[in-house]
């Protein structure tokens, strides 16, 4: 009960009026922001669905243009980062702000907030790196936001096998692919920047405590949301 009073203070809504949503403001604000972000991605994904399924000609087959195994690995990275985010959150909720500590009676070592958040940041940064690499390769091969670049490798493939490469729909493929994945990548980048900022201003100086780790919970919400959007995007863009 010692720190329970203070904990109840900061991790709960401030209003003495009546329970609103029952959450403190930062978290509530993030929820509202995520609702708005859902609408943003809905606009992009909805347009993709309308454009893709409104076309009479075939869309490029999965894996024809895109490197699915590479992005599959990238998806795995992002899922790992979500797991490490949960670990970071659990660590600080239990009051473990340090990097690693021995676990009694086992060979294992257990990480704290500093360790798990670092893992999350690194996974996120690696995801962005892989995506940048993927973009560079795609553009090199001739897949651009405007479609298949004339005279490029992919354009030649498309000439040889117009159905598999969706020769007639390349322009829309490029438009939707780069816009959707690009804005997702932008969201991941923002998350990485925000987490890095928190890491240096709050986590390393050990400003979080089990009484107040609102920043971690709030950024965690965002991070899981970005992860979820990616799983949807990966499914509809790479696998279908």
């Amino acid at each position: 009960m010692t720190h329970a009073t203070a904990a109840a203070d900061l991790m709960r809504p401030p209003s003495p009026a009546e329970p609103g949503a029952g959450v403190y403001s930062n978290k509530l604000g993030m929820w509202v922001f995520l609702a708005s972000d859902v609408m943003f991605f809905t606009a992009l994904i909805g347009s993709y669905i309308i454009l893709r399924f409104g076309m009479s000609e075939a869309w490029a087959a999965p894996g024809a243009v895109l490197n699915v195994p590479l992005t599959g690995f990238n998806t795995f990275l992002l899922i790992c980062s979500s797991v490490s985010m949960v670990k970071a959150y659990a660590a600080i909720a239990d009051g473990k702000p340090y990097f690693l500590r021995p676990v009694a009676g086992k060979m294992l070592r257990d990480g704290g907030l500093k360790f798990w958040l670092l893992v999350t940041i690194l996974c996120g940064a690696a995801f962005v790196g892989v995506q940048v690499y993927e973009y560079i390769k795609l553009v090199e091969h001739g897949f651009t936001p405007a479609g298949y670049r004339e005279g490029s490798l992919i354009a030649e493939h498309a000439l040889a096998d117009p159905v598999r490469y969706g020769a007639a729909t390349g322009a829309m493929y490029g438009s939707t692919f780069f816009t959707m994945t690009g804005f997702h990548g932008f969201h991941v980048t923002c998350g990485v920047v925000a987490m890095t900022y928190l890491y240096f201003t709050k986590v390393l100086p050990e400003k979080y405590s089990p009484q107040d780790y609102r920043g971690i919970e709030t950024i965690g919400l965002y991070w899981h949301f970005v992860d979820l959007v990616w799983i949807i995007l990966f499914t509809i863009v790479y696998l279908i």
Partner: protein
Amino acid sequence: MTSVAHARPQAHDGAHHAPMSFWQKYIFSTDHKIIGIQFLFVSLFFLLVGGLLAIQIRWQVGFPGTPMPLAGLLPESMAVGGVILPEYYIQLVTMHGTFMVFFAIMPLLVGVYANFLIPLKLGTHDMAFPRINMWSFWLALLAGMIMLAGFFVPDGAARAGWTMYAPLSARPDLSGATLAQQLWCVSIVVLGLSSVMGSLNYITTVINHRAPGMTWFRMPLSVWALFITAILGVLALPVLQGAAIMLLFDQTIGTHFFDPVAGGQALLWQHLFWFFGHPEVYILILPAMGMVSDIVANGSRKPIFGYHSMVFAIIGIAFLGWIVWGHHMFMSGMNPTLGSTFMVSTLLIAVPSAIKVFNWMGTMWRGNLRFHVPMLNAIGFVSMFTIGGLSGIFMAATPVDIPIHDTYFIVAHIHYVLFGGSLFALFAAIPYWYPKMFGRLMSEPLGKIHFWLTFITYNLVFFPMHVIGMGGQMRRLYDPTIYDFLKPQQPLNEFISIAAFALFAVQFLFAFNFIWSLWKGKKAPQNPWEDNGLEWTLSNPAPHGNWEKVPNVYRGPYEFSSPESPNSDFLPQHVKLPTDRDPVPAPPPAGH
């Protein structure tokens, strides 16, 4: 688990402030009141810009081919020999709509009054996120500057109508503008960001930062309306942002979202735009309805008639607003069966709107009406919004929409809602909360003259537009006299134009009153309108941080002429009667 609520540190506690520099206090301020006032000045400026564009439009439509006075100031690319060029004309209509909707009415209602009123009316020290709030203002200003910059780039401002229908907007070779079209998109994306930041602040504040005893159904209708508006904003603006980004990509990096030649769809833009656009229409009217409700109850000295149904009407309008976007597209080639569905949902919006109008009348019925300037303008709102709402029924009925779609009939309709509605509500709200902002009252006689002259000239401008539209005059027509069937209407067009110049001139009375009263207005007493709201428990202007100790709330905001207060005809929300019990802080939820 003792003393939970009191120990809470407040980021912006009223009394304990270190003195701040001028910059901190008035420029990069995080105080919701200062931010509201900043929005007020900036959006009044953009209102003036929009008005200047409007009178140029009216000159051209009323007197096509005649040199416009002062047109010599315009460069050759806009007007030659004082005669407005067709390419400048479509920039005028595009930017008039854009500025008025996005940079004048929306920030005036939401930016100014959501910021200013929500914390004051709910009894809190500031917004939930004061710094995000500051960013919201600066981003809005940046967006406005980007939009304004369109006039100063080589090929002129954006020119595909404020609705930016693709593919015209997506193809510089077809519209004739390259950079300005891109600036339009960038500006909208920035504005969207600003709106989302503002709205998430308003929502969080309303949910989490109400004073003790300020239950949901004790909130003033203005706060209810602003809260619902914020929800609409948070969900609608991102859709516009997404669409604007796609449009920008079409213009810059070669995507083909809206280009049918490469497999894109022209109607996709319209669906996205109006999916945003219709909720946007309610963003532009709901706060006006809310503030008018407050002012009508105050002016009538009577509780608002049917408070709960007013709240549910706001929610109903906001909900229906999401499923009516197709009524902007009845003639677009959209599947006619979809048209039938959208017609029904659109007609149903008449129901909550009717509830609101009749409840305002019910409020005035057997009241004790005080005709102060805010009340006059609020009554103007009720009567003019009624016309705007009723003329909407013509367009909602799809067969009747066929001849009047895209004509001046719709121009009349939108102006009856946005000028007769939103702007009259602002002419009510600005003097009403002026003392709370600046500590002085605006001049009543000047305000009354302004009201009557505006009311008359406004109707002379916009009512005949219904007739012009029935006659078939299309929107955005540079020179209606090209068409034989429109020539006979030209005298009426001239009449409208002259009335429009008068209407524009009359607004300088308001501007003068506004500026003059800043220094010379009568010092306001603490509660000049004898209102019940929490904001009137503060001194004028309201101090930084608002209250040292937030007042308790014992009742709703509309207890006028209550038998419980025999000596006065109002009973403020914070006054404790012997029968009132102190609000109990909510029990903390178990665990966390």
